[in-house]
């Protein structure tokens, strides 16, 4: 069973539907005992970092996530969930969970493409991921695969060792980051067609270990 953490940060049903399609049982929950009883955790979210951290703390879920990270349970962060695992976010200057060293930054403006076209913020739409390192969750993903992004902030890990994939949008930013039993992606795998479903399926069978 997979726990999809519910902390009032957006619509979680699309993650749930994707897991159902893949044939994995899951529950959308904010209850500590239920989360502890699950084999793995998906930590999604859309919205602002400040409010998300406020709600996580209010529900006591910041502690649950830290605990689960420390005991080695596989955790997948998606979108905002990939940002608030960092130490700090520029968005609302929010203190975040600090599971990965580094911060969350706002895309610089104005932002230009290689062809000198002005790029719009948020970064919204399909973009590719340059795979930097092997990871069991990234198994079977090709360089031509694209994923659906919607975000104005991006993660800037303190060390390259946390970076598994990068994406170019005016700048090159870390779009897949990980540490120990935690893997996180800035894009939405549940909205990224077959390639996204593959990532979710990989996560659902991952034991939480990889060569770091």
């Amino acid at each position, binding site marked *: 069973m997979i726990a999809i953490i519910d902390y009032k940060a957006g619509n979680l049903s699309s993650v749930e539907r994707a897991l159902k399609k893949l044939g994995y049982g899951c529950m959308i929950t904010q209850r500590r005992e239920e989360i502890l009883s699950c084999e793995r955790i998906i930590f999604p979210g859309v919205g602002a970092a400040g409010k998300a951290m406020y709600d996580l703390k209010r529900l006591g879920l910041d502690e649950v996530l830290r605990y689960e990270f420390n005991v080695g349970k596989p955790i997948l962060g998606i979108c905002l969930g990939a940002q608030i695992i960092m130490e700090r976010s520029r968005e609302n200057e929010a203190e975040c969970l600090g599971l990965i060293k580094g911060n969350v930054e706002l895309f610089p403006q104005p932002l230009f*493409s290689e062809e000198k076209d002005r790029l719009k913020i948020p970064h919204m739409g*399909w*973009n590719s991921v340059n795979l930097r390192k092997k990871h069991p969750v990234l198994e079977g993903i090709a360089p031509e695969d694209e994923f659906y992004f919607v975000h104005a902030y991006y993660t800037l890990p303190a060390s390259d060792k946390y970076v598994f994939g990068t994406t170019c949008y005016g700048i090159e930013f870390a779009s897949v980051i990980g540490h120990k039993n935690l893997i996180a992606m800035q894009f939405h795998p549940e*909205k*990224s067609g077959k*390639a996204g479903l593959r990532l979710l399926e990989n996560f659902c069978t991952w034991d939480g270990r990889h060569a770091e």
Partner: protein
Amino acid sequence: MLSKRIIPCLDVRDGKTTKGVKFQGNIDIGDPVEMARFYYKEGADEIVFYDITASSDRRDIMIDVVRRVAEEIFIPFSVGGGIRNIEDMRNVLLAGAEKVSVNSAAVRNPEIIADGARAFGSQCIVLGMDVKKVETSRKIPSGYEIVINGGRTYMGIDALEWAKQAENMGAGEICLNSIDADGTLQGYEMALTQLISDNVNIPVIASGGAGNIDHIYDVLTKGKADAALVASIVHNGTHTIKEIKEALHVQGVKVRMRW
């Protein structure tokens, strides 16, 4: 680099797609869920549904369609038509749509954009704009005016001003439909698309007029659109989404080629 999106548009009335469709194979051409699945498998980057059901007491039918679509396709899709308030938005989003689009309701009450963005985030809120070319005037300096009721009612609002206002109020994207070009198969309204795209910092989906692949190429390059809405050209079997994307790819437009 971000890919340009190709977005088929399905009009739905009383739970059935309405445009004439010549599909090969055993697809129920009237079923929006089947059609959504077909386009998903063909490489559509997103799907737009317009509910053109006349009576509001039959809106539950559309919600059921949205729910079934969400179980089948794993790309973003938006739902518009008849969205009048936050409650309508919530119902559509909870049923599984990624985005909701507002058009005439926002013209009548622009606050719905801000309310929607506050409640669900800007990324969910698409402003649909129906636009007609008019004489340039003090009231309509851009020469493009907002219309509603399928183009029958002129609203005295300048399209460029409206686009900027909607962006400021929190719209996350604009779906720009030229009533003049719509259904002509003669190409998108290029000047309008470029004008709006140059002057807002949110993505613009060009809509209305696609008759061949060159039209789509033009609007995504010279027209500076971030995405192209396609209807008749794919529904009537002139081209498949795959053909469109392959042709664009060959011409150097970045599109998603693996699905």
